[in-house]
């Protein structure tokens, strides 16, 4: 096992397949997910193994996809719906913002909505303004949705297990830039609980809080900083809701310095909420200003070199940490 590695992409299909084998109420639906195996090849093999009664190709109808998933979830199924690019969550936003997260509450707990909406998130691939956004912050504005965004292949499997077994609705972000990445396969029966950040690297000088694509960025920056004598701790949040604020505060007890690294735009990014919790409950822990390395407040440009200007990079993370060193 030591040197057997799998891709993040394969792990998506593997994570879904494990749950489909375990629980016959798990069904998949989405555009081109069947025989075609998905546009990102993240559902390869499911149609072959489970057939057309459990893996359903849909029309280009994002509202019908998630709306039908909701109706099915309310009546005994555990649908896993794919929205091809996370940008297209905008096409069914009513379901994410107004229907799915609210129906349990507004009916006084009469119904549960155990569904997962999987979607390919994020930039760095030159897909332009409408196919590159990191939109986990859109979902983060909506109470009532759980949010997972794995950074490693085994977390993909483990978080998918939690997501599909969850009786609450989950939005599951698969980062496009990580799909080809490799890592250790998930052990049998692997389950990663929601709301537990992982310490990816320990360090006593500064806490880097990261998610999905920004985890490898933060780790690379930490490598670089180590050479300069700065020991950065890297925290991978893994889920945004529930949010493991306790882990952030714990880390700050030792480091007293915080840099949040997030791909979504600075304005309205989830990092703002984390910083505000820290500036309230962790105020006395802080020895220096808090930094956020986030997407710029612009749409995403097509050209690689332009895109690099506006999304987080290792350089930007390292620079942010260095700017705190003077404190």
């Amino acid at each position, binding site marked *: 096992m030591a040197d057997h590695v799998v891709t993040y992409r394969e792990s998506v299909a593997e994570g879904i397949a494990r749950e489909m084998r375990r629980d016959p109420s798990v069904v998949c639906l989405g555009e081109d997910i069947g025989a075609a195996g998905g546009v990102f090849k993240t559902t390869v093999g499911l149609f072959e193994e489970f057939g057309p009664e459990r893996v359903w190709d849909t029309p280009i109808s994002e*509202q019908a996809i998630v709306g039908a998933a909701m109706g099915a979830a309310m009546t005994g199924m555990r649908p896993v719906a794919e929205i091809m690019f996370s940008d297209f969550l905008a096409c069914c936003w009513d*379901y994410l913002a107004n229907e799915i997260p609210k129906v*349990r509450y507004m009916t006084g707990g009469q119904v549960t909505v155990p569904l997962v909406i999987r979607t390919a998130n994020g930039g760095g691939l030159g897909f332009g303004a409408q196919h590159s956004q990191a939109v986990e912050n859109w979902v983060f504005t909506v*109470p009532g949705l759980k949010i997972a965004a794995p950074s490693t292949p085994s977390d993909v499997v483990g978080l998918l297990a939690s997501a599909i077994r969850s009786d609450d609705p989950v939005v599951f972000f698969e980062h496009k830039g990580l799909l080809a990445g490799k890592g250790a396969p998930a052990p049998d029966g692997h389950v990663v609980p929601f709301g537990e950040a992982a310490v990816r690297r320990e360090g006593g000088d500064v806490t880097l809080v990261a998610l999905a694509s920004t985890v490898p960025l933060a780790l690379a920056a930490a490598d670089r900083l180590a050479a300069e004598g700065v020991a950065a701790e890297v925290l991978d949040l893994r889920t945004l809701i529930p949010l493991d604020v306790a882990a952030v505060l714990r880390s700050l007890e030792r480091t007293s310095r915080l840099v949040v690294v997030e791909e979504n735009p600075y304005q309205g990014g989830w990092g703002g909420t984390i910083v505000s919790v820290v500036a309230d409950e962790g105020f006395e822990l802080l020895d220096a200003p808090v930094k956020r390395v986030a997407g710029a407040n612009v749409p995403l440009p097509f050209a690689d070199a332009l895109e690099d200007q506006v999304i987080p990079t290792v350089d930007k993370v390292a620079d942010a940490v260095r700017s705190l060193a003077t404190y």
Partner: protein
Amino acid sequence: MTETTAVTDLLALHETMAVIRRTEKAAHDLFMSGLVKGTTHLAAGHEAVAVGARAALRDGDYAFATYRGHHHAIAWGATPEECLAELMQRSTGLNKGKGGSMHLTKAATGMLGSYAIVGAHLPMAAGAAWSARLRGTDQVAVAFFGDGATNIGAFHEALNLAAVWRLPVLFVCENNFYMEYTPIGSVTAAEQPAAGRAPSYGLPAEVVDGNDVVAVRNAVARAAERARAGDGPTVLEARTYRHYGHSRTDPATYRPEGELERWLERDPLTVSSIRLRSAGTRDVEIQAAEDRAAAVVDAAVATARAGPPADLREAFTDVWADGGAAWRTTS
């Protein structure tokens, strides 16, 4: 299900319609006296659609309704007391005071919610029908919606998906000829907003007298039979009329003079009384049913009113399936 209806059945339907009518009258009065707040969208005039549909269906069949959903909730078994307690923000309300008039829900009997965003529940109903098929039950799902809802994107997506997947779902439009204050004809390219769109999805459609509970019942029965036989969805367009304005205190001045009066002549309760009489039911029996309805609702008003206010702790329950609302860890 035959197309004839026993007199006793019809009297029961009449009584249910009377319960709905009386409940809504109470809601209106309570709104006017400040005991119901927020908003209400009364369905008075539409009763035959909900009651007729329910009568044609089986226990366990699903309903999805709109903000104008008192009649569907009661037809699906919610009591007037539960409904009125909800409107009066009581902890004894159908939704514990957390939903209100626009979100009446009785999941235990398959009434899976009232939704206040126009058209949003159509895909959900398709999904519930898909689920019934996946689970191998013979349940059907019905979505009730207004004429105005036929112009929103979710309508199109739901009908297409349901048609392609041949789902056991019924799309029942309550065409009352108005969206809020605008006549539907002025903003809709099809003369029959729902039925006229069915061919676009290869679906059978029927226009039915929405003020005749028996006509609705028979049409829904036919559609449900097709659905259970695996022949897919049907679009029904029930022509009806709302007696009150759109919501709250809307005086409905946008209606041409005499229009309401003409429709009141075809009030579903009048239509049903005539039918009962012509089938030999005596006026006193009809009156007795209406009196029972009145008594139930009067008692419901009193009980609901006396109920405890919504429990403040409920503000922070029911977000998650574990009952709570925790969004973060605490140290």
